[in-house]
């Protein structure tokens, strides 16, 4: 037994010595090699192909996405302010806006999905998307599915959590609002496990699907999206707002602020100034479609190459199996 332990000890120590060897190498000769390569890389005259390759590399996913976000720390003495670095950004951010890891919409559309289609309101819509789940506005459960029940879910885990509203400064919640629907007489989240799994499977198999399969899958995935999204004034209204603000944990003061004349007035202003543009979500040439859109109440499609047509051709309320 003692002999066995000794052997184990020796083996472990051999591993340790190897590790030390690597450290020593890195501290000494590795520097020399690194310097040698650096120096020679600096002296080489690049050929045109090299330069083209370098330009290409600059546009690679690694450079553009993975390496694009830096962090900075400001040492203020009484605290260290660490935040994301956005080039040329003047004001401080102060905390991190983490991605929604649970939403299956965000997995394709991103966390800031509202873009050119709703140009003048995109930032507002993104701001709301930060604490309101996509389905809350883009899905209108019809008929018997309607419940009027909304809950907060954790951005990280997806669990239903208690209201974060009154513990945090406005809009900085770690949770998002998600509607509940009635399916087979049971009260369930609209982003059911089955739907999440469906999207995951689609993304996994996307490459191997045929044209028909792909379109079908997309249609089914977007089948919960209603033609007409929820509009600003449906919630920002003193009378019977769509979201049960009090149940979602908003205090009287916050409810008053959300439905105040200031906010409502601003929405009216925006509607007045920018609604005409909102009526033409990039499909102005097609007269028939334009007519359709004008007949319907304005659409606020999410930004995606496929989202707009999908929304238009949507067969209503067809839930996928």
């Amino acid at each position, binding site marked *: 037994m003692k002999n066995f332990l000794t052997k184990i000890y*020796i*083996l472990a*120590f*051999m591993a340790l*010595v190897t590790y*030390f*060897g690597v450290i*020593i*190498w890195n*501290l*000494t*000769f590795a*520097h*020399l090699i690194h*310097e040698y390569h650096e120096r020679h890389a600096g*002296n080489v005259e690049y050929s045109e192909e090299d330069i083209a390759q370098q330009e290409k590399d600059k546009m690679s996913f690694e450079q*553009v996405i*993975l*390496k694009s*976000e830096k962090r*900075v720390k*400001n*040492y*203020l*003495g*009484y*605290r260290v*302010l660490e935040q994301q670095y*956005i*080039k*040329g*950004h*003047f*004001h*401080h*951010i*102060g*905390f*991190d*806006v*983490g991605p929604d890891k649970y939403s299956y919409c965000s997995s394709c559309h*991103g966390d*800031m999905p509202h*873009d*050119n289609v709703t140009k003048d309101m995109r*930032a507002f819509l*993104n*701001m*709301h*998307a*930060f*604490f309101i789940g996509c389905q809350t506005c883009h899905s209108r459960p019809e008929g018997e599915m309607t419940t009027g029940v909304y809950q907060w879910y954790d951005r990280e885990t997806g669990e239903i959590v208690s209201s974060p509203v009154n513990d945090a*400064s*406005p*809009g900085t919640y*770690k949770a998002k609002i998600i509607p509940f629907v009635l399916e087979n007489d049971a009260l369930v989240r609209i982003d059911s496990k089955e739907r999440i799994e469906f999207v995951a499977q689609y993304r996994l198999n996307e490459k191997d699907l045929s044209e028909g399969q792909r379109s079908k899958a997309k249609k089914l995935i977007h089948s919960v999206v209603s033609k007409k999204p929820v509009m600003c004034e449906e919630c920002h209204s003193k009378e019977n707002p769509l979201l049960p603000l009090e149940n979602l944990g908003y205090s009287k003061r916050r409810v008053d602020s959300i439905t105040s004349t*200031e906010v409502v007035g*601003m929405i009216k202003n*925006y509607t007045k100034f*920018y609604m005409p543009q909102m009526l033409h979500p990039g499909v102005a040439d097609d007269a028939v479609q334009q007519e359709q859109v004008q007949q319907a109440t304005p659409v606020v499609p999410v930004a995606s190459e496929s989202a707009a047509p999908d929304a238009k051709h949507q067969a209503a309320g067809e839930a996928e199996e």
Partner: protein
Amino acid sequence: MLLNLIKRPHWSFGALLIALCLLPGWVLAADMGNCLLCHKYPGLSRIDNDGKMKLMFVNEEIFNKSVHSKVKCEGCHTDITKIPHEPAKPVDCLTVCHIIEPTSEQKFSHKSVKTFIDESVHSKIDQEGKLKKFSEDMPTCKDCHDNPLFRPLAFVKKVRPGIAEDAMGRCRVCHEKEDFIFRFYNHITTRLHKSRSPLNVAEACGKCHDDKALVKRHGLTVMAGSSYAETFHGKAANLLSETIPDCLDCHVVKGKSVHQMYGNDDPRSSTHPENRGAICNSVDCHPKASVKFANYQVHPVFNKDQSPVVYWFTTFFYVLTGGTLLPLMIILFLDLLRRLFPNATFRRRK
């Protein structure tokens, strides 16, 4: 490596909340137009057509602790006159804002900075007023400055810096406006020491001076930030020393502004060979040092072409260290291996 980059800490605003508690609750004077009604929401953002993230969020608590906390939003964002507004134009830092400078009773402006900068090494124009080559590389305000934050000192509070309530209490005896007391205290105590930690200063300069392409294009001899980090000063800055000299302590003439930096060949520059000796033996640094002391290379580079002596000297020690330790590690390894098989041998013992 990549995983590290993707991973990002979330929601560290617990720390922020603690900081908030220190803040007395008064109404933010700057937000006359109620801009924060919308801009207090951190999600107020979009990705523009170049794929750049535009974040329109203003963190009220942090803004209140910045030197601009008394300036109204529209004092800088002059193009915003009504709500709803068009996408805001870039702010002109030289604009005349609505603050009255108390000594001259004139409206306040950063205009003098421009005259300084135009003369300095960082100007976009040369002495004849023509655009320099690669003038687009030259820094604009926001390349070096974000919104400067107060860094209050408190001598009555020995444990750590910050606002001393004791000192504030003394102010309150005569002054009534809480807002004024807070800002005055912060302004004075921030100005009494470095307005940024040496590490933050080195990082700010390093944004350009450690950029290989920029350094090469402008014919600079060293990567200033990373070579500074190799010296004692840089390492101490890295360990958050507040008193260690940073870039500005040597490159700005004592008593002048950061914006009045000149090239090494300019006799007005503090780093001109003629003036260099006086940097080190200033009363605040190494008072009795001789002029020879300034021969010390503050930007040493481990590169055979740039500084062969440093290269060979360092190489000697690398080889000595590696050459001693690696064989010893091999002996150690073999010794351990021998202990696993104590009696094995190729040859029978005689």
